[in-house]
């Protein structure tokens, strides 16, 4: 395996609604400029481009076609796209660098959730023959998951609120966060349910946003940044599509991905992509992340959840902890699909 590192990261502000189109171009152009100029690169220096986005979010077919206009790919580029979070595009780019064909890659994800009704749109990820016609929306599915955990004694509404309080407090120092503020647990628990047992603070907000990461191999990474975030392991896995066939209080695919990515030994910071409070509790327990591991210091998806960019942001935030010298070993997690169906884990380290 070649040594490959995250060397650059940029993200748009996470906002309730942008004025731009669903093409993502207006969000992507500034952050491409930011990440490339920060590294002293131009588009001609990039060997491979890969993006993650969703036509359903954009409300049209082939939304990624317009997004490549943000690159201005003339002359033509070596490029690919996944219909998934940008984190999976990063996996494809990491693989491309591993083949030895290229030494650098630029990965991006974008989503304008405000263009539609997100919770209803996400219902169309379910089995189209037997489940989607009933339109259980994303809050309903997550609510079932939360309820199962509460009834089995795996977690409580108070523990869920504690996750929200920490997230909002951390978000106060994240200039890109959409939701921040230091309400206490009792105050949050006094709020009404939005999808029993979920309250507003248990659910990620609806967010428009985009993110970009630059990967580089070996010497190229050393040339570009002082302290590259070397990827020591990256893996992903998926669970069954049948909600009734899964134990929704666990996340087996996250455990598999973490094992394949090298495990959590020495991890100081874990950026977890958990759009619902109880999902963080599932991951912390399943991965065995103890009190010594700082969880999602960016505030995470609960503070801002740009769909299809959010997982890539977790990798960027975890890499930044290494770039800045705050941590030597970090873990990033991304998720996709209903109730944590598909999960990716990326472990990075700094080398002195």
């Amino acid at each position, binding site marked *: *395996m*070649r040594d490959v590192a995250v060397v650059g990261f940029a993200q748009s502000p996470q906002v309730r609604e942008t004025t731009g*189109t*669903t*093409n993502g171009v207006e969000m992507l152009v500034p952050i491409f400029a930011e990440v490339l100029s920060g590294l002293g690169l131009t588009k001609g220096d990039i060997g491979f*481009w890969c993006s993650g986005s*969703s*036509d*359903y979010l954009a409300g*049209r*077919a*082939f939304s*990624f*076609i*317009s997004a*490549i*206009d943000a690159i201005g*790919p*003339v002359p*033509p*580029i*070596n*490029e*690919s*796209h*996944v*219909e*998934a979070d940008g984190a*999976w595009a990063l*996996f*494809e780019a990491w*693989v*491309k660098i*591993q*083949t*030895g064909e290229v030494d650098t890659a630029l990965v991006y994800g974008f989503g304008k959730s405000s263009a539609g009704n997100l919770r209803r749109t*996400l219902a*169309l*990820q*379910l*089995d*189209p*023959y037997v489940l*989607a016609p009933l339109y259980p929306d994303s809050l309903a599915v997550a609510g079932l998951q939360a309820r199962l955990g509460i009834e089995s004694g795996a977690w409580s509404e108070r523990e869920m609120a504690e996750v929200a309080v920490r997230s909002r407090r951390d978000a106060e120092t994240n200039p890109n966060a959409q939701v921040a503020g230091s309400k206490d647990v009792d105050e949050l628990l006094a709020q009404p349910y939005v999808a029993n047992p979920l309250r507003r603070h248990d659910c990620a907000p609806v967010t428009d946003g985009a993110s970009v990461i630059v990967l580089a191999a*070996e010497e190229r990474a050393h040339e570009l940044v002082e302290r590259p975030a070397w990827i020591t392991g990256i*893996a*992903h*896995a*998926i*669970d*069954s*599509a*049948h909600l009734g066939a899964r134990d929704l209080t666990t996340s*087996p*695919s996250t455990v598999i991905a973490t094992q394949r990515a090298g495990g959590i030994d020495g991890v100081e910071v874990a950026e977890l992509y958990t759009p619902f409070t109880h999902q963080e509790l599932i991951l912390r327990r399943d991965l065995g992340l103890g009190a010594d591991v700082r969880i999602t210091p960016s505030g995470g998806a609960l503070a801002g959840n740009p769909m299809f960019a959010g997982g890539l942001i977790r990798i960027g935030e975890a890499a930044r902890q290494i770039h800045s010298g705050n941590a030597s070993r970090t873990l990033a997690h991304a998720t*996709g*699909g*209903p109730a944590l*169906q*598909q999960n990716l884990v990326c472990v990075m380290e700094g080398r002195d």
Partner: protein
Amino acid sequence: MAGKERAAVLGTGQTHHKAKRQDVSMAGLLREAIDRAMADAQVGWDDIDAVVLGKAPDFFEGVMMPDLFLADAVGAVGKPLLRVHTAGSVGGSTGVVAASLVQAGVYDRVLACAWEKQSESNAMWALSIPIPFNMPVNAGAGGYFAPHVRSYIRRSGAPTHVGAIVAAKDRRNGAKNPYAHLQQADMTVDKVQASQMLWDPIRYDETCPSSDGACAVVIGNEKAAAATDRPAWIHATAMRSEPTTYAGRDQVNPQAGRIAAAALSNQAGITTPLEETDAAEIYVPFSWFEPMWLENLGFMPEGQGWKLTEAGETEIGGQLPINPSGGVLSSNPIGASGMLRFAEAAMQVMGRAGEHQVDGARKALGHAYGGGSQFFAMWVVGADKP
């Protein structure tokens, strides 16, 4: 600098492509192709390390990220499942991504699959949703591409019956392929020319059908290939993209296709593509794209592609048989069409193409394109180790 691992196609599978496969669900359709590919590769589920799934736009069938609901049917539970989407080239891109997973040394064996169930979809509608700052494609793909074809005819001076020659050949080839949607063994140039004009100069019989269908391939590393009888070695892969529109863009002979083909030949060590390639499965949804892509792919000089077609040299038995399977003109399950080209190229060098086998084929090209002739994916496979 790590070296790239060798990778090979161990087996291929496809469905009987039809207008409406109402006997199966989307999952059942895919599984037919997968089961055939795994049997052909002589592998079981435990042998598969990861699954890559390709599909054209989600709007076609109205399911958001259908890979998620198909996780069980494609045998991916507990494994990595990667969903590729690069427009009409997606079937080819899926093959390229699956190959790279093996070439990178990440996995030993990868299952790649692609599908489209047009009977459960409305591609014409999905392609006609207005897009900010873009010219609408209200007439569907044919209306979009017809001006490019007219431009090709004007530039090359090709006789106007060349399109009909391609269509008649591909339909007759399709009749040799038991999986092909259209079975028209008695198709002739005259019949094609007598069919209804749809988008001048493209007549009804010069257009691809709407098909339900799926395709799958199993790709393995050198060790896995050693256990396989006659695998198709992957000699080269390439993908390139360019914008739909920009000042000075040549839509007839797009730059992205030309540089992808050049990169492909370079990687495969091919200097004279026409002489060194024994068969090619190229993405020809409208007849005229055969001569156009013959030039774009570097088989013929610019303006000369039609001469190879007119001389009958793209027939099975000719200098460069193009689409011996019948191609997209005989079966078009959109998301799978590119992978079918890749799989059929592999079948040729594996000697498993049955009645449409090109005698002695040892090196073959698989090609796919998508969007407004702007996304290209291709591979070269060979009977010999690269």
